[in-house]
């Protein structure tokens, strides 16, 4: 599906030359609560940008603003040169280009696994059902769940459901994948299988924005880390800098709160699930 892998280099620096998604001073209020207070950063093609920070700091809200599931109260979100929240923009067209994976999977319980993955292409792209089913099977094989194609989501474990959800998002062949805490609702033993699918996706060159509390994943797979606190970006940079020499006290507080004390990359490697252990 994703064949750009070899041609895309992953810039290590957020101000690189090929931005696909840009957040410019994005503001979002819920009544008196300022959920996002002027968030600015960019995502380059092929990058894995990890958004980290305490719960309620605005990371998930930002993702929902990225594909216009939420409106914004200020600033702009630019996808490949197009203002996502502009009135004249067809939000539906832009959403096709951004795959989204949710914390609670949100598979469609009345459809089989195969139809869950195929429903986007048939409904939105007008693809013929046999062709969509073919694409869906291919993606289910990719996430290691081809044998579950005819089952309903309720028969699957959380980790399996999330892998189907990833396949469902990939079926639209998006330019960017948005992950909203994809492993937060999972049993510890199934987190690894989801992370390794994500890792493989990253290796293939998929552009990803990942809201996560999996610091090992962020450190090892992330190419750019954005640290949120109280609706603001308090620090951003390559993982080595953010995790080992955080420049801001807020970042240090957050990491030490998680029990992170700047281990070396080598040590944390032991904690990362190998990408080859997917069933």
């Amino acid at each position, binding site marked *: 599906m994703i064949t750009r892998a070899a041609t895309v280099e992953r810039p290590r620096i957020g101000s690189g030359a090929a931005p696909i998604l840009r957040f410019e001073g994005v503001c979002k209020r819920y009544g008196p609560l300022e959920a996002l207070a002027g968030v600015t950063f960019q995502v380059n093609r092929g990058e894995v940008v990890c958004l980290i920070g305490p719960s309620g700091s605005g990371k998930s809200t930002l993702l929902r603003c990225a594909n216009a599931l939420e409106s914004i109260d200020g600033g702009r979100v630019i996808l490949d040169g197009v203002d996502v929240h502009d009135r004249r923009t067809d939000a*539906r067209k832009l*959403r096709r280009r951004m795959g989204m994976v949710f914390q609670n999977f949100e598979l469609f319980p009345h459809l089989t696994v195969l139809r869950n993955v195929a429903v986007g292409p048939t409904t*939105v792209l007008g693809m013929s059902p046999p062709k969509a089913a073919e694409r869906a099977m291919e993606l289910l094989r990719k996430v290691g769940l081809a044998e579950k194609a005819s089952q309903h989501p309720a028969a699957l474990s959380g980790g399996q459901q999330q892998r189907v959800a990833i396949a469902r998002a990939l079926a639209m062949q998006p330019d960017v994948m948005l992950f909203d805490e994809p492993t937060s609702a999972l049993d510890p033993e199934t987190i690894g299988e989801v992370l390794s699918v994500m890792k493989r996706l990253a290796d293939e060159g998929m552009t990803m924005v990942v809201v996560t509390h999996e610091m090992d994943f962020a450190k090892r797979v992330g190419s750019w880390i954005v640290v949120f606190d109280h609706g603001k970006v308090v620090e951003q940079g390559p993982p080595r800098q953010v995790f080992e020499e955080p420049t801001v006290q807020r970042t240090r507080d957050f990491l030490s709160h998680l029990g992170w004390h700047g281990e070396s990359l080598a040590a944390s490697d032991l904690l990362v699930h190998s990408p080859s252990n997917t069933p």
Partner: protein
Amino acid sequence: MTFDWSVVWDNRWRLISGAEMTIVLTATTMAVALPGGLLLALLRLSPFRVVRSFTTGIVEFFRATPLILQIYWIFYVLPAAFDIRLSEFATALLGLSLNVSSFNSETFRAGIQSIRPGQWNAALALGMSKPQVLHKIILPQAMLRVLPALASTWVSLFKDTSLVSIIAVADLSYVALKIRSETYRVLEVLTAMAALYCLMGYPQAKLVDWLHRRLKVAE
């Protein structure tokens, strides 16, 4: 006291045709009130406040007033005030349909709103339009959830059709009560009437129970 059950047997074809009318009225009303209820439910979820309030007004009116009054009103007031004349059957159908549509709309609305917002978000994120989300994702799930409630409404409707006998629609009640007044065989005729309603209603009630059990497991 002696019973004369022959009165039931002699009038069997009239009773059967009355039962037929009851079934036809129930089925036709539901055939109108299912799409009608869905339409009202969707209008009540409309983004436009005027549409919402107007529909809410209609629904609440028909839920808050007795069915017998609604039937009388259509029967007497429509012709008098608006010069709209309907046959007895059409009057009965209109009254029942408006009433049951209102109840169905509440059932549908509850069903639609019981689907968590995440399902909307997931479908919208794929690039679906709102009508597509409703059609492909929300309604199929909502329908399954409200099926037992709709079936209960069906059984109530089946019995409530007896109210149309007041405007001389020849349903089972009307026919039976007519035979009673012709023959003065109150006990025999009313017993036959009860037996016929029960014969038809019991399997429906059982079907509802089965749906409840069946769909509960599927949750």
